[in-house]
């Protein structure tokens, strides 16, 4: 027996993009099973750790009262408030984590841990929120609506990432496209005075940036990580420059027609739920529609079958006569439209128009959602919702003057992503050929 770790062996350790095709023998399958078992033990341990942590918090929150309020009819209307002992919330969370640890340990690899994390996360954020508020009243209608609205750019951005990566193009330039979409959307809306012109112009410009990126990656086989980084940094530089030199001195270019929330007839009249779910910006409903639409397209149509084939094994697609290059350009066009559209939301839904670095890393959170959601639009949107909730909690806390460093909550999506990507708690399988240029012939 030896414990010496050899550098070569370490260098051969798999990364998430390892093509599974090469492990064809039953030897590999056995290995997979063993690896999954190890990962599930790690998860069980992690959940047990969280159980203990939350038990500790439960202990420390005796006597603290969580005070919450809802608006019944509309934002700023009549409210109804209630209070819960924070201990109770934490007992529930502790029990949840305990159950997860136990189930994970007993069921092993077949336990649906991703779903379990998805289910407990909202409660965890909520309980944390209550603990940190420490007796201050929080309005949950605001909390939930802002959760849903924070989800919009991240969710659509994640969709952009999924469409391009399923086709085989590693798309880290979502952030840059969001920024461009935000600026162009604001300018177009300000100049034309037509509300709808903003999202349309943002989407079109996002598509142009995306096609440029695709052209670099496909035609010139530029490393897609480098090309994406160039676009992200370039977008920040160009939009900041344009803001300082044009939008600030000539502020008429940065006074967009805001896209205001809509009231869905009847549904928005439902007490409590109406103001939360059915009186939102139209962007949110479009986002949900897009997620459902693309889920169907990716898994149930010919387009989706070919898209996935191109992202997994482009040669397999190319040799049966599918034009992989054209397919990837088209996927990037769609991804650009989506990301630019998502960007326009950022500058058009608020009041301020475009500002420096207004996307504030949401494009990167979108990529985290892509990975956490295992390249599935619905799961990724779920991840975006959880990330949106942490953002909403941060905003709420700082609005109420609770002083905790907001970075703690804001860094959560990245920490979660690192854990997922490292494969410690279970491997996510990326499209096997994402990021690899395709050589025709």
């Amino acid at each position, binding site marked *: 027996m030896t414990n010496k770790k050899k550098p*070569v062996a370490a260098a051969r350790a798999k990364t998430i993009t390892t093509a599974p095709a090469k492990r*064809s023998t039953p030897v590999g399958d056995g290995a997979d099973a*063993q690896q999954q078992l190890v990962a599930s033990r790690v998860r069980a341990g992690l959940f047990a750790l969280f159980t203990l942590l939350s038990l500790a918090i439960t202990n420390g929150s005796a006597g603290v009262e969580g005070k919450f309020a809802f608006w019944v009819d509309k934002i700023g209307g009549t409210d109804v408030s209630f209070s819960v002992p924070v201990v109770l919330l934490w007992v529930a969370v502790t029990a949840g984590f305990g159950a997860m640890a136990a189930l994970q340990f007993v069921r092993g690899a077949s336990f649906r841990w991703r779903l379990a994390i998805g289910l407990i996360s909202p409660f965890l954020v909520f309980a944390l929120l209550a603990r940190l508020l420490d007796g201050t009243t929080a309005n949950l209608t605001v909390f939930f609506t802002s959760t849903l609205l924070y989800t919009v750019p991240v969710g659509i951005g994640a969709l952009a990432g999924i469409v391009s990566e399923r086709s085989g193009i590693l798309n880290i330039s979502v952030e840059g496209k969001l920024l461009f979409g935000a600026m162009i959307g604001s300018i177009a809306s300000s100049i034309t005075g037509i509300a709808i012109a903003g999202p349309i112009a943002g989407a079109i410009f996002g598509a142009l940036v995306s096609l440029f990126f695709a052209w670099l990656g496909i035609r010139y086989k530029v490393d897609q990580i480098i090309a994406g980084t160039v676009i992200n940094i370039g977008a920040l530089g160009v939009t900041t420059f344009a803001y300082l030199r044009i939008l600030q001195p000539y502020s008429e270019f940065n006074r967009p027609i805001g896209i205001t929330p809509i009231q869905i007839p009847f549904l928005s009249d439902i007490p409590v739920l109406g103001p939360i779910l059915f009186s939102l910006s139209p962007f949110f409903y479009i986002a949900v529609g897009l997620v459902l639409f693309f889920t169907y397209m990716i898994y149930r149509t010919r387009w989706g079958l070919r898209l996935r084939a191109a992202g997994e094994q482009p040669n397999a697609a190319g040799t*049966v006569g599918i034009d992989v290059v054209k397919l990837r350009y088209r996927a990037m066009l769609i991804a650009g439209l989506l990301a630019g559209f998502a960007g326009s939301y950022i500058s058009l839904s608020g009041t301020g128009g475009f500002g420096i670095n207004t996307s504030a890393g949401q494009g990167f959170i979108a990529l985290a959602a892509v990975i956490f959601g295992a390249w599935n639009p619905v799961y990724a949107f779920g991840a975006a919702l959880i990330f949106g909730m942490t953002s909403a909690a941060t905003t709420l806390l700082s609005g109420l003057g609770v002083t905790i460093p907001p970075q703690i909550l804001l860094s959560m999506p990245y920490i979660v992503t690192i854990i997922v990507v490292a494969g410690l708690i279970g491997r996510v399988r990326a499209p096997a050929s994402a990021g690899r240029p395709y050589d025709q*012939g």
Partner: protein
Amino acid sequence: MRLELQKITKQFPGVLANDRISISVDKGQVLGLLGENGAGKTTLMNILSGLYRPDSGKILIDGKERIFRDPAQAIDAGIGMVHQHFMLVPVFDVTESVVLGNEPTKGPLGSFDRATARAQVVELSKKHGLHVDPDAKIESLPVGVRQRVEILKALYRKSDILVLDEPSAVLTPQETEELFEIIRGLAKGGTSVIFITHKLNEVIAVADKITVLRRGAVAGETTPKKATAAKLAEMMVGREVQLTVSRSKSKVAEPILQVKGLNVLNDAGGLAVNSATFEVRSGEILAVAGVQGNGQTELVEALTGLRLVDSGTVVLEKKPLHAGSPREIAMAGVAHIPEDRNRDGMVKGMTIAENYILNTYHLPQYSKNGLLNRKAIAAATEQAVKDFDVRTPSINTDIASLSGGNQQKVIVAREFSRNVRLVIAAQPTRGLDVGSIEYIHRRIVEQRDAGAAVLIVSTELDEVLALGDRVAVMYEGRIVGILDAKEATRERVGLLMGGITK
């Protein structure tokens, strides 16, 4: 359908890959296309499948000229390719894989009509006797079945001309025999088949007509009835070839390598080598046979220090080596000819001389106080290049610019430059021309005769049978049998390669 290629010429920068090649195959005929690596087979097939355009020459189908601008047009014309490296998406199921590119759809969004597709695949596999589960994931299927899926893909596209590129490379002899049955059946049903290979026995077994390519041109045409393996080899290489390695009987002495209960994990953490126990003695060649991917790679990496040993012992002449670094192992007298010379054998971009001292540069004769002794290195390399007949303009040439055969000679020269007690040669002749194969084989046998122990790992059964004094067979990480050369018949080894131990 009758397919005819007339005077196909394709020039690449510096290479005339196809030089006025004319071949033809009739309806229901099996054409064996024989040639070494680099003879132009693959280029010709890429032209036929629409991936390349020929510089000149014609493709005729039933006497009518056809021009293929992309693979889709070749498929439309009825040409179906089964590539050497399977073109399948591992996460797709069989149905999806077969219909990809010609999917039945319904509705305005182009929804994939899975039920229809599945029914078509089931019917097709029944009709041609190609049994596959339409719902199985590709990655869960053994290689032989994946090949059936590839053939189904071609048949689904109504191919009348089926082109198989080195189809037996990944199969056991028994699976190869099954494949031949399928090919014969298809030919009987009217499909024309082009069977590309470098294995002489296979063309004789399955082809109706044989065309031999050499250096991009047709070297001759014959039929299996008229041909013998020796004659075909001569056509392929251009001179008389010794098909069997001439070697004296081995003078076996004391054991040099002793491996006991060796367990090695693969990258994913699974057991790749499962309690391997064997020894190799001085003056003998132990050849390890097995279908690719049954743990041979991990075994060799573990023996040479490139991979962690999980448990078990490796002893070289009483010296334990299972915890040794690659350098310790090399210095102990182990010569390693790696399986993938591009990855583990040399550094492209460095010169022949630099590659020659790659694992001895630290020795006092080549370096002192961290400075290389250029003169001594040049002298040693010059001598090695002469001894091993490496064809190169200079020892300061980038190794990447040499042919595969000459690269391999540099590697062999380097490994044999030290005191050699054990030779570990993994796929030592993969991708080499027949001339280089003969040369490398001779050098390895020389080491054996000089008293070294030799461990050869090869997936080519011919190589195993030609060289092994004893033959070990690996299957799913286990050594399922060790046979003496006398007992090691093609059939017995073949069965063991498929995991059948009686």
